[in-house]
């Protein structure tokens, strides 16, 4: 026969998603430490002019082919290239990174260039947190060998390359964890929730 449109009282509907998640959430939220973003100002720039007329600019063409500019709020650094492309680093949130990039674009505009604000994109996000217990890195590299690299002769931390989401984690013996490679904030949170139960096992 056909299935009834409304369930009968004998077969009550149950919610599809459980009220409590299957595993306990860690209760720790990684803090964002650095955001790297890029934007295209859409016009060619004369770096010598910028370095001459801006107070907050540094330009050593022999060392690096870009102007290094800094602003105080949000506290960030920008690399401005003669092609008109710009990299903005140091912000603590996506919104701050965008605000900072807009301010750099305004500075360039006021210096006499027809700067636009095209294709703003967050390229990398770095977060960190502390699980507050020590971790046996030598044990972790044995059981998760396909994702881990631990070379104490080179670096004190274990480098964990998570596949889903595609995030790189630096795990230290003190329990501090650095997460990088994210394009969106949710990837950092997801990566940490994935690693926490693994770390608890060590």
């Amino acid at each position: 026969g056909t299935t009834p449109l409304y369930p009968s009282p004998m077969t009550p509907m149950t919610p599809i998603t459980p009220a409590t998640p299957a595993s306990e959430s860690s209760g720790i939220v990684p803090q964002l430490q650095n955001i790297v973003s890029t934007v295209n100002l859409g016009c060619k720039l004369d770096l010598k002019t910028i370095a001459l007329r801006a107070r907050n600019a540094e330009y050593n063409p022999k060392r690096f082919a870009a102007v290094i500019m800094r602003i105080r709020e949000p506290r960030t650094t920008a690399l401005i290239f003669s092609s008109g492309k710009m990299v903005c680093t140091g912000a603590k949130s996506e919104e701050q990174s965008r605000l900072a990039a807009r301010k750099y674009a305004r500075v360039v505009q006021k210096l006499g260039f027809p700067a636009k604000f095209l294709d703003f994109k967050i390229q990398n996000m770095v977060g960190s947190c502390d699980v507050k217990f020590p971790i046996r890195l030598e044990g972790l590299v044995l059981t998760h060998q396909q994702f881990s690299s631990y070379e104490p002769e080179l670096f004190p931390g274990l480098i964990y390359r998570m596949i889903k989401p595609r995030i790189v984690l630096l795990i230290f013996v003190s329990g501090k964890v650095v997460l990088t490679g994210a394009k969106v904030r949710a990837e950092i949170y997801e990566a940490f929730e994935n690693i926490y139960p693994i770390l608890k096992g060590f």
Partner: protein
Amino acid sequence: MPGGGHCPDCGSTELVEDSHYSQSQLVCSDCGCVVTEGVLTTTFSDEGNLREVTYSRSTGENDQVSRSQQRGLRRVRDLCRVLQLPSTFEDTAVAYYQQAYRHSGIRAARLQKKEVLVGCCVLITCRQHNWPLTMGTVCALLYADLDVFSGTYMQIVKLLGLDVPSLCLADLVKTYCSSFRLFQASPSVPPKYVEDKEKMLSRTLQLVELADETWLVTGRHPLPVITAATFLAWQSLQPSHRLTCSLARFCKLANVDLPYPASSRLQELLSVLLRMAERLAWLQVLKLDKRSVVKHIGDLLQHRHTLVRKAFRDGTAEMEAGEKELRERCQGPEQGKEEVASSSLDLPEGKRPASPTPLLPPCMLKPPKRICPPPPVSTVTGDENISDSEIEQYLRTPQEIKDFEKAQAARQAARSVSNPP
């Protein structure tokens, strides 16, 4: 063919040089007659004299391999021989080098990188056979910078998708300890300093295991810990004559380099031993310090498992309890519970030492350098209005621009005076 050679069989002048097996031959390209032979040995005679003929020599495959790669492969074999590795290691390392060379990024790399790649292939081979070769040794032999080595090593492991086991600590202890020149008297080693190799090895291994258990090894370079452990093992085997010898002097007379972190590892290891000594009834009364505890290392190692359990409590439990205590203290006065001291079986009430320290890595026991307050929650949307005055603070005034240009010109003039063309 120049030189006017004729084939004795058919009289043709079309003679070509052909390298075949281990000799070069002059062969007539018309009738195939071998006109002259080079060296008077063939693979047959080589085998007869029990000399191995390598595959590459017999097939001329080296003709297809670039000179750069051939040089690299020779360097791999040389390095294996210098390190006196078993012959099977050589073949594996060579195979890795060839595998790496198939990638365009490696083929186009600088010579410095290709040289370092030689060391990487040998190191990976050793690690896979649990042969305790350190990166420091490889870099020293190649006169390479550890930074360059590190970059190439990480890249090649990822590129070839290799599983490289960790350095085996126990094997490293055996190899490293054996290199200490303390097992025979010499002009630099007085007789009281000479030690039995097996005794020293066994005690060093126990000390390294103790260091590993008490979080002194994880995250740190393995060698300095072993240096410190070797020193303590040696001192403790004859403390009356050796307590006056410092770590630096010990390494000098043993003809071993003293790694910089070794002194720090030594202090950490002594602290662990002191904590353990506090749990041993007949040592507690002696009020030991970092020097006198060395005399009792033998006893401490004998009972190390029990002592570590007694001297240290679970670090995780301690941290959680400590945080709970802090929260309770914030909520109400005099709420914090006293931490329960260890069992009273070993010592009487009055003489019980301070409550056990948590078993944690040293970096977690040190107070934080600066307390970072959590950043205030940001309300920035990114779409805020940007005022002109805020941007203008970053622009130079016309006067400033003039001054800057003047200063630049003056610097330019000064430069051209000091460097006349």
